[in-house]
């Protein structure tokens, strides 16, 4: 297997995720925490993020239905999701979370609903892309961690 080619592909995939705004510098900070003792730390954190964020999204979905126009409650849930997005560098998701919170501040139900759909969409897209990225890294082998993209 051409491991160097796989590593190049992983690096290219990662650069693309940054160029398209899916990820920001914070993702590199998480990857930098990997070492020999914790070689898969970034993947573990991302897995944890998607598990947690799925739960938070479900909570928000229920709150939108059960607590109509309770913007404070909606905002509180979304604040948690936004925080998690920041922590792993999920930049586009974070932006959509912020839009949702802005709409909460304006008391704009329609805006909140549309924005929430965007949050869910970004969540799904990012999950797919990062799953592909980490699969590629695993195939590339132990030294397969992509380099920091030039920004």
């Amino acid at each position, binding site marked *: 297997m051409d491991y160097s080619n796989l590593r190049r592909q992983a690096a290219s995939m990662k650069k693309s995720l940054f160029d398209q705004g899916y990820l920001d510098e*914070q993702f590199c*900070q*998480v990857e*930098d*925490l990997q*070492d020999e003792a*914790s070689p898969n*730390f970034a993947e*573990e*954190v991302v897995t*944890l*993020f998607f598990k*947690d964020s799925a739960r938070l999204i479900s909570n928000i979905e229920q709150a939108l239905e059960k607590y109509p126009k309770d913007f404070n409650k909606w905002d*509180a849930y979304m*604040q*948690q999701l*936004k*925080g*998690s997005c*920041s*922590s*792993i*560098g999920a930049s586009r998701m974070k932006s959509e979370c912020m839009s949702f919170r802005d709409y909460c501040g304006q008391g704009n139900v329609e805006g909140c609903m549309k924005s929430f759909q965007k949050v869910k969409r970004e969540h799904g897209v990012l999950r797919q892309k990062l799953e592909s990225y980490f699969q590629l890294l695993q195939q590339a082998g132990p030294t397969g961690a992509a380099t920091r993209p030039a920004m």
Partner: protein
Amino acid sequence: MASKKQGSATRALVVEDIKVDCVILLRMLRKLNCEATVAHNGKEAVDLFLEGKTFDIVFFDKDMPLMTGPEAVTKIRSMGATDVKMVGVSADYGGMEAFMRAGADMFVPKPMKLETLDSMLQEVIGKKNTSG
């Protein structure tokens, strides 16, 4: 990088309910040779102090169930824990005022950078070495 002095690793308490944030901060602390303990909300943190546990530095998230970060800071300071360095951490910049009013030593916006954490720990280590 903050270094470990034999027999005197910096003892950190992380008070955080969001798992992802907790895991990342714990990893940073362990990378910087700290002993880290976790509390999942302000009440658990207060309980640790009530049990007589001591720490060199405590990191508080702001919004948590049962007891918020600023509430926990106020409570722990009122218990006489005036020496321990208390750091408020939040993605919400509005949290700074709440934390400082409660008696925190500083506020750091999330996500925290490793370099920021390292310099805070250097300060704590320096203070420990000076006091002996």
